């Protein structure tokens, strides 16, 4: 299989893009007309591009072309993801402190109680559609609390998030429709920002509203900032939880091992991130002539960095296609990217996955696929790796 089969969104290639990635790594850095980009797939090369944010601009990270600066669309595109330093550093510094592990630890009791509540509600059901029942509600509810937006509106946030995320790594995207949804989302957030200005709590919405009040952010920037954090804070975590549960359902012995040794679940989370990165790749724009993996990349070129491939590079990970949570470099995967744009919410995602697995494994004695493994289908995106559905047959611990 070629990597270009993945780009074509062929369902079989989306189910297992990894032979396509192996083919790309074999070739080294090369220009793919289908991607209209230089494809970078080896670990060392991907890491080099991500660390060199001066040469490789983030302005086209999602692959969509840069909108003209004075266009309406420019007011709704992601605020952090597509920015470069020094703007990026300034923008990120507004919220960065709130997302470090030491601060996020305060949310652990909430995450645990949400996991318990969801599982309590499911305990009567033998067959559970895991995505709708767990992988969607947990992260969207958590992020509404962390940001300080009404949890009661989680359903609307999820629907906007799904629609906007679906435009990434897809073909035939209608930019007018993307703009329409983003405007609707932003319009909804306006009154929330107004209200947050006078709030006592120091949640993220209040931090952003204060920056707006201090004249640091115009309203459209404040709104797209919140929008971006909401979207980033739920879609990827849903995908990661689902991929991890599929892994466990296919391998009952693995689930039993972690039931008996829950303290090592963080290593399983890391290994699952390595094998099934929720973001499989992103784009960069070369702002100057450069060279990656011995190949010259001219200024102005699009560059596609494949995290999902780097994570399975045998030069960095022994036996790369095998799940081995005990490997010494289990945390060095690129699922959260690397460099200045490394995922802001990584500590939150890691916490949610750890607590979700602790809860699910301790409250079940077996988790199996309710349908044959060959039937699993992925969303049509070469960026987002997300299952469409995951029906599980679960044996709950009797209370």
């Amino acid at each position: 299989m070629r990597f270009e089969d993945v780009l074509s969104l062929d369902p079989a290639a989306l189910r297992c893009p990894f032979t396509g990635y192996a083919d790309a790594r074999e070739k080294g850095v090369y220009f793919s007309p289908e991607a209209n980009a230089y494809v970078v797939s080896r670990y060392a090369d991907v890491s080099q591009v991500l660390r060199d944010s001066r040469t490789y601009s983030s302005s086209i990270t999602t692959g969509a072309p840069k909108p003209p600066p004075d266009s309406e669309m420019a007011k709704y595109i992601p605020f952090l993801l597509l920015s470069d330093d020094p703007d990026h550093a300034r923008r990120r510094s507004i919220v960065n402190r709130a997302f470090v592990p030491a601060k996020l630890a305060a949310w652990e009791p909430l995450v645990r109680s949400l996991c318990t509540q969801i599982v309590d509600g499911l305990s009567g059901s033998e067959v559970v559609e895991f995505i709708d029942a767990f992988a969607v509600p947990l992260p969207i509810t958590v992020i509404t609390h962390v940001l300080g937006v009404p949890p009661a509106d989680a359903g609307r946030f999820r629907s906007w998030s799904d629609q906007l995320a679906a435009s990434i790594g897809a073909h035939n995207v209608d930019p007018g429709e993307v703009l329409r949804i983003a405007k609707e989302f932003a319009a909804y957030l306006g009154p929330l920002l107004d209200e947050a200005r006078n709030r006592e709590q120091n949640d993220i919405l209040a931090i952003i509203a204060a920056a707006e009040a201090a004249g640091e952010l115009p309203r459209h920037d404040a709104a797209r900032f919140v929008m971006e954090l909401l979207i980033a804070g739920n879609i990827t975590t849903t995908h990661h939880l689902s991929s991890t549960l599929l892994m466990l359902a296919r391998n009952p012995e693995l689930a039993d091992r972690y039931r008996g040794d829950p303290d090592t679940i963080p290593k399983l989370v890391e290994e699952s991130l390595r094998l099934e990165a929720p973001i499989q790749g992103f784009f960069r724009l070369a702002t100057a002539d450069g060279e990656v993996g011995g190949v010259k990349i001219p200024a102005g070129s699009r560059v596609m960095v494949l995290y999902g491939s780097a994570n399975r590079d045998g030069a960095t990970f022994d036996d790369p296609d095998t799940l081995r949570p005990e490997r010494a470099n289990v945390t060095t995967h690129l699922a959260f990217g690397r460099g200045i744009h490394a995922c802001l919410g990584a500590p939150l995602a890691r916490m949610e996955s750890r607590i979700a697995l602790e809860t699910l494994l301790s409250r079940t004695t077996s988790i199996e696929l309710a349908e044959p493994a060959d039937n699993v289908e992925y969303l049509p995106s070469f960026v987002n790796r997300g299952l469409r559905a995951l029906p599980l047959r679960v044996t709950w611990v009797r209370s």
Partner: protein
Amino acid sequence: MSSTEPVSLLVAGRDVIADDVVVLTLRDAGANELPEWTPGAHIDILTGDSMSRQYSLCGDPADRGAWRIAVLRDPASRGGSRFVHDGLSVGSTVGVRGPRNHFPLQPAERYLFVAGGIGITPILPMIAAAESRGAPWRLLYGGRRRASMAFVDELGRYGDRVLIRPEDEYGLLDLASVLAQPRTDTLVYACGPEPLLRAVEEHCGHWPAGSLHVERFTAKTFDDEPAGADTFEVEFKRSGVTATVPPDKSIMEVAEEAGIFVLSSCMEGTCGTCETTVVEGEPVHRDSILTPQEQAAGDTMMICVSRCRSPRLVLDL
């Protein structure tokens, strides 16, 4: 942060605005927009002696075309202010890094600003921000003589919210009365010479923790910081492992080689994932997360980039 690569800017304006105080207007030679900044931010001016000096931006953040700095000639100066005063004129180019902000204006209902001498510079844009936000504020501004105090005219438009208090007319600043009553809705921002800041800190002793924010003048920053580049020993206390960190490896890499499970993401001190508790030793911080106060306290460090000044570092890992 990676805005460490210097850029060349054009000196587009140079005005003496008070005794020994010169204001420079800096622009991009190609008339490009300058990077965004927020009140409290500073830039590093490369002073041609492989050193740089930090100067607060004191113009309008909304003006992306120009930056303004005000520099006091320090008679004891051996490089920085003399370079700016004597070496730069309209049409000169100067190497600049930044901006960076170690003194950001946090949201609050009210503000009290205290400035001493050239310490007025970071306070000016803070006042404008408080003003545009509609937050009530006051400024207590001291200096040796009225003629030595920069921006007195510019501050005139704020009326009696600004107390101009030259020492030869009023004596030392009356901190006791403005800081007598601690308030929970007010943040205090102070910048000025060390004795003033110490006095402000004393008078804020009974204010709620976190009320007071100060910026100290830093004399000079070396371009490359040799401290901490050497080899040191690290003990990972919980794991019971001791190892050597050579100059070409990070603490993170050494931990990984020792089989210690440490989470990481950015590997360059921006994301905060690897924040680790320091049990013993003097860290040399190279991250862009911790505040200067937190860095000075040295309780935690980012082990992907930060190093150690003392020969031995003990970490809670």
